[in-house]
């Protein structure tokens, strides 16, 4: 009968009072997890960082100051900043273009492009250095032509910049591709129906949508660009005061048993990393002038 149908009611699931306890882990589990996270960070991140600054200043502040103002150190700092200063913007442009192409267009060989972007991650940095040697070295494929035009790439800053760019190529693209895939293209299509051109759509719609992913990619890219050792070591030639980066300089000092100086230069690298992180935090806190979500 209809009345029977109407009066039939599904019993409400009983007892919601314990719901919060059901969903949260017990106290001991939370404590163990927090302890593991903090313990790991302390042991493997904070302790070495402290050790660097401790060792660097152990022989007095004067020694420290002399080590970081030394002409070779200043030159190494310059080469490192040059490499990062070129590699990071180039990488940003490449990463955004590649991610845009992969997520907004359909074309043949898309899967290949995605795989290719990952190549620098899967190849050992030393090998990527050797590839450049093979291409631009004195006996390399293009060595002859370059020499005839008087262009020097190997054992000179251009090689360091190239090697750094190669090694850091995937960072921004890898960060953006999944993000832009998840976001879809409806907003860009909508902007087009409203009459917006490519530039307006990119700067007003796409860029604000991907800014956090882009920022994170740039921070990672910058860290790697400044810290790269293997590839740069192969192509630099270790010429003091000319083609040494900070990482290479640290190695040389360490091998010469100048431990205090080695740690002092290391502390410079650590400081650069901290500056990057502080910059990221500040941008996140204050936004790009737009609304922070």
């Amino acid at each position, binding site marked *: 009968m209809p009345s029977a149908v109407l009066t039939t009611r599904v019993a409400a699931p009983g007892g919601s009072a314990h719901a919060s306890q059901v969903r949260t882990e017990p106290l001991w589990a939370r404590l163990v997890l927090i302890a593991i996270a903090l313990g790991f960070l302390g042991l493997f991140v904070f302790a070495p960082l402290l050790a660097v600054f401790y060792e660097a200043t152990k022989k007095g502040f004067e020694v420290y100051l002399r080590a970081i103002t030394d002409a070779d150190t200043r030159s190494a700092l310059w080469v490192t900043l040059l490499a990062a200063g070129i590699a990071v913007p180039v990488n940003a442009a490449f990463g955004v273009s590649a991610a845009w192409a992969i997520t907004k267009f359909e074309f043949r060989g898309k899967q290949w492009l995605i795989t290719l972007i990952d190549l620098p991650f899967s190849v050992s940095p030393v090998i990527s250095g050797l590839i450049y040697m093979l291409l631009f070295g004195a006996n390399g494929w293009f060595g002859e032509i370059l020499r005839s035009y008087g262009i020097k790439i190997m054992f000179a800053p251009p090689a360091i910049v190239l090697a750094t760019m190669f090694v850091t190529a995937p960072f921004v693209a890898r960060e953006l591709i999944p993000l832009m895939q998840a976001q879809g293209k409806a907003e860009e299509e909508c902007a087009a129906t*409203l*009459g917006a051109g490519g530039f307006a759509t990119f700067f007003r719609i796409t860029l604000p949508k991907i800014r956090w992913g882009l920022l994170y990619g740039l921070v990672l890219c910058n860290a790697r660009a400044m810290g790269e050792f293997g590839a740069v070591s192969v192509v630099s030639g270790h010429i003091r005061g000319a083609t040494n980066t900070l990482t290479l300089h640290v190695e040389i000092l360490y091998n010469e048993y100048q431990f205090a100086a080695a740690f002092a230069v290391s502390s410079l690298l650590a400081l650069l990393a901290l500056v990057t992180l502080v910059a990221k935090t500040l941008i996140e806190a204050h936004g790009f002038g737009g609304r922070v979500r």
Partner: protein
Amino acid sequence: MSIRVEHVSRRFGNFTALSDVSLEVASGELIALLGPSGSGKTTLLRIIAGLEAQDTGRVWFHGRDASHTHVRDRQVGFVFQHYALFDHMSIFDNVAFGLRVRPRRKRLPEPELRSRVQNLLELVQLGQLAQRYPSQLSGGQRQRVALARALAVEPQVLLLDEPFGALDAKVRRELRRWLRRLHAEVQVTSIFVTHDQEEALEIADRVVIMRAGRIEQVGTPDEVYQSPASSFVYEFLGDVNQLQADRAAYARPHEISIELTATSADAIPATVAHVAARGATVRVELAVDNASRVIEADVTHARLRELALVKGQRVFARATTLRVFDNTQAAE
């Protein structure tokens, strides 16, 4: 502005989304593209907008061939299924976007722009929320922002992709009525996509019923409901009963009369399987004797009391109206 779609086809790999579709829309009309998912209705809408390219065929806007006009220059307002609001912009900036990206010489002076946007926000009843952000609005409000944003650029054509798909039933009915009124007010040629036959029949001037990349029938809501061109259209527009296993003879649940004795030769003997009150009417499920078929009948509460139906009772079902199709096309 009138729209003419001429022999448009579109394939995606092996899938034929549209095959040889032609359609005429008169200036100021409100048209519904109705069909199950995969019938090509959204593809057709996107081709009219210029968001998708047709493989063959042409699209005419007011007698002008727009087949290869870029979406930017087609002057269409497009309302996306999930609104596609710009989350990092306020409601005001969302609506103003289309006006602000115009080339400098065509751009409105700021005070004029502000008053235009404010007027549009009043039109969609969101005047108070101009400074809010999309994430702070309800689904129905977001939908209205999307509409105001599309209308801001004074489009020649308004295209809406499943405009009420993501809303709950009550809000949907309200917005439906509201869209009808809005259309009467702004008089812009509009096409909307839906899979909800009630929605299409309620607000459209004409309904285009699509199936597997083709147009099955075009007509006013009354025409398609009263004289469906095929069993597919008939089945898609409402609940149906197939009365005979071997013949495409159909009747809607409200066209079935339940009787206690056989009053005619075509009365079908059956057993009451289920009785459910569904509001104004009662839906009775009848299991046909010696067949696995079920006939659904809608009767009034008064009739139900009169018959005193109980589950398991033996009755006869008779169609008061019977519709027979020669083209026996089973619905997919």
